């Protein structure tokens, strides 16, 4: 089951961090349809946050059509963010990316420069999506 981690120094609201972590896991195929999210009680007693924060995050995921609460049972993943892309494509693309990062490091770029290059290029080439 997915475990949330909150970074209090990030400046991102805690509920948004939960939303982003679920979306991220859905994209990477770490969460799939039918998987259960941790209960509100489980979340508050592992990451020490207000229960309403978790409710708010789960509600937002529900509006986005990604999860559905089943009363008495919990909250389940009912949507997907990977579309029809097969898992093998993710594996191949990730391997390509690792090769690219190694190449960049050999070329003498430090971590910060790698990140700056990736973020800058992403901004130029992607239609903005949160």
């Amino acid at each position, binding site marked *: 089951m997915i475990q949330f981690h909150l970074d*209090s120094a990030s400046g991102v609201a805690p509920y948004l961090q939960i939303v982003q972590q679920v979306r991220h896991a859905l994209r990477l195929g770490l969460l799939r349809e039918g998987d259960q999210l941790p209960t509100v009680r489980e979340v*508050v007693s592992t990451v020490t*946050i207000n*229960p*309403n924060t978790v409710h708010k995050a789960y509600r937002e995921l529900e509006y986005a059509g990604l999860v559905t609460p089943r009363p008495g049972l919990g909250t389940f993943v009912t949507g997907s963010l990977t579309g029809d892309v097969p898992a093998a494509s993710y594996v191949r693309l990730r391997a390509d990316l690792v090769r690219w990062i190694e190449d960049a490091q050999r070329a003498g770029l430090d971590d910060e420069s790698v990140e700056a290059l990736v973020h800058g290029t992403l901004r130029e080439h992607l239609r903005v999506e949160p």
Partner: protein
Amino acid sequence: MTSALTARGLTKRYGRRTALDDCTLDIPTGRVVALVGPNGAGKSTLLGLAAGLLRPTSGEIEVLGDAPGAGPDQLARVGFVAQDAPTYANLTVADHLELGRRLNPRWDAKAAERRIADLGLDTGQKAGRLSGGQRAQLALTLALAKRPELLLLDEPAASLDPLARHEFLQGLMAHVVDHEASVVLSSHLVSDLERVCDHLVVLTGSRVQVATDIDEATGTHYRLTGDARDLDDLPPGAELVHATDNGRHRTVVVRSALPVVADRVQVEQLGLEDLVLTYMARAATPALRTVASPEATR
């Protein structure tokens, strides 16, 4: 729906000293409230009044729809732990649990025993021989085990080390989920409470400076920094909370329902800690406030 706590014109004086002045509040149930303010601001007085241990000099206070300490039913619904986590020095931990069981109609003996075991406290130990942190944990265990609908905790984390504080707040959040309880936690530090609280009351100089849901507060406060000339006029719809000048450089905090856009001025949303500090700073410089904005407080 009844409120967890309502106060109208609530005032408490000790002789000539005013501890709480004309305090008006309405805190809905189901909230975890951060009651924040410097030492001596009136936090303990407000909690003492809510617990029914103090009587108001004037004004009214209701807790869960009834007068504080009105009778046995009301007392059973409210849990209170005072600042120094008082326990009976000559009674053992087990004695305290037995006392709790006999005095509280909704006592959850299993939960109390489990919590004491989890904390690693020796039930045969006298409370007077426990460390400050252990004593605080014992007092909190008693307050949780009586299964209150409203928990009033005065500086609960003050004597706990960081790990114990973390564990205590985890247990408290689980309690809120399990029993749909409301909580008021006082602290002079907001960083401890940022993640666990969803409602904020800032108290300084015996007065309520701001009382609001935290999401609403952090979503509507902005800090504007820039040249003083560019900040003479505030963005439309924004009301001034506090302004500080440093030569030509001016920093302004405003409250605005709409996103703030301004030319040649840096705009940032205010985090909870900065927001609390701003209201405290404003209370400390009342002259500026009255000149700048008589309407800034709700």
